[in-house]
């Protein structure tokens, strides 16, 4: 990895000194290469691949030779602009990015304007938002660009004020000399500009001098969010892009046979176009309400889908057939478990949606896209246009959870727009998003741990999963890098699995292997990908091992964790959460640990499984056991924005609770039964823990780790462990309520439910 730098331009020259550029432009524009990060610390191969290189090192290193420049611009009004080549979907990266710029430029955060960059093909692999990699990959280059801007501004101010640079101070966007003269950076935007592009070396602010990074900041887009001004794709006013929806098949990926009443539906109020496309029958109308009515009116005969006749039971049998063996059982005592994880939905609250305007010879797309480069290529191929004729705008996303790694709606919108020759604003109905949208694949995990006395001799885990579609660019990164890894000829997903699953305990020899089967489902990465399931299975077995050795679950983990940083987060949650306190029967604590993204996390929960709680009445929802307390401790190395990190951990806790207790898709007869938020039981207020405490550990590193997904795995595992301790039985099937269908499934024909008419009766 270390030898892959391009001619030395990327290399740090001495401690904290980096090279960047001043770019020829009318106002000050500075730039740095996005691949500019310290090289991964590569050690000799060991059985634990994650020690050699984790997924983030791969994603960071993949871009080094090819990445383009990212640039920071100083504007005449004293603001600073930066177009971030990543997708903001709620994780707070526009805020943390603005903080990096504010730190190095000594400008107030309010003056930094962070927008999302269009798809930029010259960035090649380096415009993918995933793997909690954004801050890890951009931490150095953004600061380098900002630091160069600061140098140029100071130099221009020296001329302007007739002072030596050493006599100047830059504070709050104003440069002052010792005799009371001052100038705002906005007034220097042109004077600091360069007529030619030149390379500049710069020193970054030392960590001990940080005043912005590492301190809690509220989100820069919060005011827009709470006033309704924040614009998502469907809020954009693109001329003549009228509402469009698709009538979809009753089973997964079914195809249109014929449509019996095209003319009749075309004549419905508000409808402008009805056209058959590859995924169904598209309707364009004056309002989405009229699209819904038209979709419901269509009489379509459908051809079979890709999962015809399949159900939870048939998939489970297929997984069993694909399981890799655990090998001969050792002669020593063992603990074994087999765990089942049903399909789950990564549907965000903003459904799949995109605007497309396809004209002769060109196309323009607007959508929240985490892999805009792959989307651009795929759309160009679908439309038969050169890649350069497709413009892809990345809009702010209403959540992702992995869903927006793909661009299903953008591809569909482009197809419809081309077919009818008009711009379209295409949105999936919630029922579509749940039934035909991508899922976290169903999986099983088999674990065997061998022990003797107080020693764990070996730990083996065999994870078997319905195939996860990684065909959104992350796969291409892995393709590009796989040849450079000492893992032999294994596929994308196996590589991904190895890179993301660290073995954090001293459990002797062992192996964690993935096998995949069945590509008939629409799958994708879901927040934290394999880790929640793999970690949940492991931590339940850890509790069993502790019990066999007669040890307390916390003490056992503390004894077997490999390093001080890991033990510190575990000890912190035990302390803050009062581990071991006396609790009533039917209630219990659970504790779990997970390491990923160059970070470590521990979670302690308390759960109430008493009948009075489990059976509390909830209209059209699932009550079940209530998690009453969650304590999370995280060490992400350097936390750029601790308040944003806490927000991400809060969301991870809610995800973990849902994954363990309530949220799953039920597969029957080739389709998912869930078609509503009152069918798919993501955590709601009545499931929310009344007590939540998040501890961000003091920084242990000069570099930030990833945070957006970090807390999901340990949260899910801690809830499962607590449930096991409260009920006295180890849960083996997730979510625990999957066996009970808690709603009446909606019909599949028509594919979407009618719009209610009784809204005024529910005014309250």
């Amino acid at each position: 990895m270390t030898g892959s730098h391009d001619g030395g331009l990327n290399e740090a020259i001495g401690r904290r000194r980096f090279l960047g550029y001043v770019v020829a432009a009318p106002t000050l524009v500075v730039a740095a290469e996005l691949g500019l990060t310290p090289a991964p610390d590569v050690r000799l191969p060991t059985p634990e691949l994650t020690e050699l290189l984790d997924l983030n090192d791969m994603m960071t290193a993949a871009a080094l030779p090819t990445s383009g420049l990212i640039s920071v611009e100083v504007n005449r009004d004293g603001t600073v602009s930066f177009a971030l080549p990543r997708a903001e979907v709620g994780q707070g990266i526009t805020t943390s990015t603005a903080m990096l710029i504010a730190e190095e430029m000594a400008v107030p955060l309010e003056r930094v304007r962070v927008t999302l960059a269009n798809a930029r093909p010259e960035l090649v692999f380096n415009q993918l938002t995933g793997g909690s990699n954004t801050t890890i990959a951009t931490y150095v280059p953004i600061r380098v660009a900002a630091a160069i801007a600061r140098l140029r501004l100071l130099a221009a101010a020296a001329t302007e004020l007739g002072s030596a640079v050493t006599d100047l101070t830059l504070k709050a966007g104003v440069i002052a000399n010792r005799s009371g003269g001052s100038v705002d950076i906005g007034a220097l935007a042109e004077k600091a500009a360069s007529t030619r592009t030149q390379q500049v070396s710069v020193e970054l602010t030392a960590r001990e001098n940080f005043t912005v990074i590492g301190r809690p900041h509220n989100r820069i887009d919060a005011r827009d969010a709470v006033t309704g001004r924040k614009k998502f794709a469907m809020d954009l006013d693109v001329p003549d892009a009228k509402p469009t929806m698709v009538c979809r098949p009753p089973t997964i990926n079914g195809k249109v046979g014929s449509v019996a009443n095209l003319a009749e539906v075309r004549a419905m109020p508000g409808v402008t176009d009805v056209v058959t496309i590859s995924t169904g029958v598209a309707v364009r109308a004056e309002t989405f309400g009229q699209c819904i009515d038209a979709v419901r009116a269509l009489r379509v005969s459908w051809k079979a889908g890709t999962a015809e006749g399949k159900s939870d039971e048939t998939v489970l049998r297929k997984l069993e057939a694909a399981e890799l063996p655990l090998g001969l059982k050792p002669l020593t005592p063992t603990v074994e478990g087999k765990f089942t994880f049903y399909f789950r939905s990564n549907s965000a609250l903003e459904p799949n949606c995109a605007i497309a305007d396809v004209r002769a010879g060109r196309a323009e797309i607007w959508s929240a896209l985490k892999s805009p480069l792959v989307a651009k290529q795929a759309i160009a191929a679908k439309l038969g246009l050169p890649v350069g004729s497709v413009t892809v705008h990345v809009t702010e996303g209403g959540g992702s959870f992995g869903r927006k790694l793909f661009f299903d709606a953008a591809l569909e919108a482009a197809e419809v727009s081309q077919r009818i020759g008009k711009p379209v604003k295409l949105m999936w109905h919630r029922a579509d998003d749940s039934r035909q949208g991508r899922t976290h694949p169903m999986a099983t995990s088999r674990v065997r741990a061998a022990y003797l006395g107080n020693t764990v001799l070996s730990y083996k885990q065999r994870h078997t999963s319905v195939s996860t579609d990684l065909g959104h660019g992350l796969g291409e990164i892995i393709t590009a890098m796989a040849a450079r890894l000492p893992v032999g000829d294994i596929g994308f997903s196996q590589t991904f699995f190895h890179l993301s699953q660290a073995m954090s305990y001293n459990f002797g020899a062992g192996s964690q292997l993935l096998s995949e089967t069945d590509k008939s489902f629409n799958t994708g990465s879901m927040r934290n990908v394999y880790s929640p399931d793999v970690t949940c299975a492991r931590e339940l077995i850890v509790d069993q091992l502790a019990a066999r050795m007669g040890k307390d679950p916390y003490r056992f983990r503390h004894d077997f964790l490999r390093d001080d940083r890991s033990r510190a987060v575990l000890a912190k949650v035990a302390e803050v959460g009062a581990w071991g306190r006396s609790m009533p029967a039917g209630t219990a604590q659970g504790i779990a640990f997970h390491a990923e993204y160059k970070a470590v996390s521990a979670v302690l929960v308390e759960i109430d499984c008493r009948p009075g709680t489990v059976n509390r009445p909830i209209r059209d929802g699932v009550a079940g056991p209530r998690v009453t307390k969650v304590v999370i401790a995280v060490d992400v190395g350097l936390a750029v924005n601790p308040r944003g990190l806490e927000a991400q951990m809060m969301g991870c806790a809610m995800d973990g609770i849902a994954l363990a207790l309530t949220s799953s898709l039920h597969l029957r007869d080739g389709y998912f039964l869930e078609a509503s938020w009152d069918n798919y039981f993501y955590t709601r207020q009545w499931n929310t823990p009344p007590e939540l405490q998040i501890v961000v550990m003091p920084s242990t590193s000069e570099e930030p780790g990833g945070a957006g997904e970090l807390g999901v795995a340990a949260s899910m595992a801690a809830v499962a462990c607590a449930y096991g301790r409260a009920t006295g039985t180890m849960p083996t099937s997730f979510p625990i309520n999957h066996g009970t269908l808690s709603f009446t499934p909606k019909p599949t024909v028509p594919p979407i439910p009618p719009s209610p008419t009784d809204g005024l009766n529910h005014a309250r």
Partner: protein
Amino acid sequence: MPEHTFRVNGEQVTVNVAGDVRLLWVLRDILGITGPKYGCGINVCKACTSHINGKAVNPCAIPVADLQPTDEVTTIEGLPATVGKDLHPMQQAWLDHDVAQCGYCQPGQIMAAVALVRRAAAEGRGITDADLDGLRNICRCGTYSRIREAIKAGAENM
């Protein structure tokens, strides 16, 4: 095409559209008022929560023909004006607690919170944990804990 007249955020509006088109689409697709979001279309997710005559409703479930000319529809865009300020105290509480993540559900969350506090006040009481448990607005980012804190704080200043 039939005409429908009602009030939105303090202004009288008239729209020409079929009477069965739900208010959500009249607001978003015809009037260009995009604060209320689509999340389900069947009055489940509550992302479109707005007020009619001060009470929380879900425009995805209201045919526009059901509105009277004197009915006052308030969306998130019109909430600050109901208190004559740049921000309603509940919006300020949302900022103070840095609640929003992706932000998509938050206009609906805030409108539901304001109506909840008013309802409790009308009953001569404060907000309880049971009230908060009863909020049905979904947040897929999982901001629930900060929402609870913000509602309690916002209620203090309403």
